[in-house]
């Protein structure tokens, strides 16, 4: 992960993450950006369930282009509040979206058109605060948002970048297609015979994927269908600690800055309490051709 972030996420980059909404959030990638002290990032996502809040608190972020920033089960994002209200640790620019409009902004980039129209956002003050969304002729036009890099965490991938993800996908597909590059982190690194056995489950074209990182637990504390439940207590703990600057900084030191990599982090998690143990296997599809 360190190498992937080093190579493909420079200071100032526009980074799309948390694209499946609450599940499959690439926390390991975000923590690595923090360790590498990235600056001036623009974060793009629908909601972000604490990851964006952490990067904002760590001072990595210049702008957030998102529909929601906070902690889904706990409420407000304290670092987000401090940045917006008091410029702590640094001021933050916010491009407000709704969930649908951020999806459309990414579809616009994926299809390489300047904007896409929608009936959503009519009558909302989001039209006032986001310079990239305007109302005209009774429709709303959402400007394209093109990430430099989209980062997705998935259940399994092969070394060539073919990623199998399942469960709800949120805006993963449009974000990956819109992005110039995609980094995949995965619970399991598998042989190509596994991924190619089911080309319908391959999330994105391998031509977009520049890095594959085998990072078990890389989405913790968010859930991974078939692998991990959501670690609600961890989110609650983060919400409590991040209420104050001091508390957040101590949390960051304990869980990010003072941790060398994801495998060290996972050793400190009670993995047994969140591991999914009972399989529910999908009925096989037969791709036979002769």
């Amino acid at each position, binding site marked *: 992960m360190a190498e992937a972030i080093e190579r493909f996420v420079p200071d100032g980059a526009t980074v799309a993450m948390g694209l*499946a*909404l*609450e*599940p499959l959030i690439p926390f390991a990638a975000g923590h690595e950006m923090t360790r590498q002290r990235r600056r001036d990032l623009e974060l793009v996502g629908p909601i972000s369930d604490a990851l964006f809040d952490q990067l904002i608190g760590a001072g990595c972020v210049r702008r957030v282009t*998102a*529909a*929601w920033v*906070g*902690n*889904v*089960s*706990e*409420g*407000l*994002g*304290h670092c987000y*509040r401090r*940045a*917006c*209200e008091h410029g702590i640790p640094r001021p933050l620019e*916010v491009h*407000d*979206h*709704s*969930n*649908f*409009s951020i*999806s*459309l902004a990414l579809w616009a980039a994926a299809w390489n058109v300047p904007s896409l129209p929608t*009936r*959503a*956002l*009519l*009558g*909302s*003050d*989001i039209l*006032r*605060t986001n310079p990239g969304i305007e109302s005209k002729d*009774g*429709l709303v036009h959402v400007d394209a948002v093109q990430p430099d890099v989209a980062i997705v965490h998935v259940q399994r991938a092969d070394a060539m970048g073919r990623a199998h993800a*399942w*469960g*709800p*996908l*949120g805006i*993963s*597909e*449009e974000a990956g297609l819109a992005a110039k590059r995609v980094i995949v982190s995965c619970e399991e690194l598998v042989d190509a015979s596994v991924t190619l056995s089911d080309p319908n489950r391959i999330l994105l074209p391998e031509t977009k994927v520049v890095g594959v990182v085998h990072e078990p637990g890389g989405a913790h504390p*968010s*859930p991974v*269908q*078939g692998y991990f*439940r*959501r670690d*609600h207590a961890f*989110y609650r703990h983060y*919400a409590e600690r991040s209420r104050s600057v001091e508390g957040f900084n101590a949390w960051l030191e304990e869980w990010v800055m003072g941790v060398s990599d994801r495998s060290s982090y996972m050793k400190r998690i009670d993995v047994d309490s969140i591991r*999914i143990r009972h399989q*529910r296997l999908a009925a096989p599809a037969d791709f036979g051709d002769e």
Partner: protein
Amino acid sequence: MSDFTPQELMVAVASREIHDGDLVFVGMRLPVLAYAVARNSHAPTARGLFEVGLMRDQPAGGFLGTMGDPPNVAGALWATRMSNVMALMAQGEVDLGFIGGAEVDRFGNLNTSYVGDPRRPTVKLPGSGGGADIAILSRRWVTLISHERRRLVEKVAFITSPGHGDGSPGWRKRNGLLGGGPVAVITTLAVLRFPEEGGEVCVATVHPGHTVDEVLENTGWDLKVSRDVSETSAPTEAELAAIRRFDPDGFWTRSSVTKG
């Protein structure tokens, strides 16, 4: 007054807004429970739609901290992209949506974005999420909110999710908003309802143990009261049993209504 929390009452009341056969856009927190209760009682053929990219019939078999938790995916009727779920809503196929709010005004407009000047807000709230989409596109919707003077305000500082706008007749249609707008605001003290044609909200029922005066005192404008105002029906035993089955530890129904 039987033994239930304000949140349990709110869930029970919210569940009654779900009609059988409805396609419900289920927001997080209390609406997830409301959906589960409705499916288990009067709305056995309702379906739930989740912006994360899911459709379900049966409520999830386990506790949900978020709509993307694994129990909400297992057995789903459709696991897809958010934009597909939004497509159904944009077509007017979603009968009912739920939206939580930090601030609501007399015309049902919700603010979940900024208190104060957006450029230098006093309070930065998390934002729309799917709220604005639901408010504009679903056929009808309901807000759940803690009944406090600072939350029920004369005029919201920022309209994240438009209700009936400036309250003038036909405001939504005139501005091209697809759905019919908010029909009710369910608070910790009362149920407020909008006239069928939109406009200004009005106290319909007051929760057991509370009074109209208390409701008015805790509202930031001169709130109208229905001539036939009555008491909100308490949760039935069956409703309570369902709530407690889906929130066994009281994560949602035995702590503060708006977390954070």
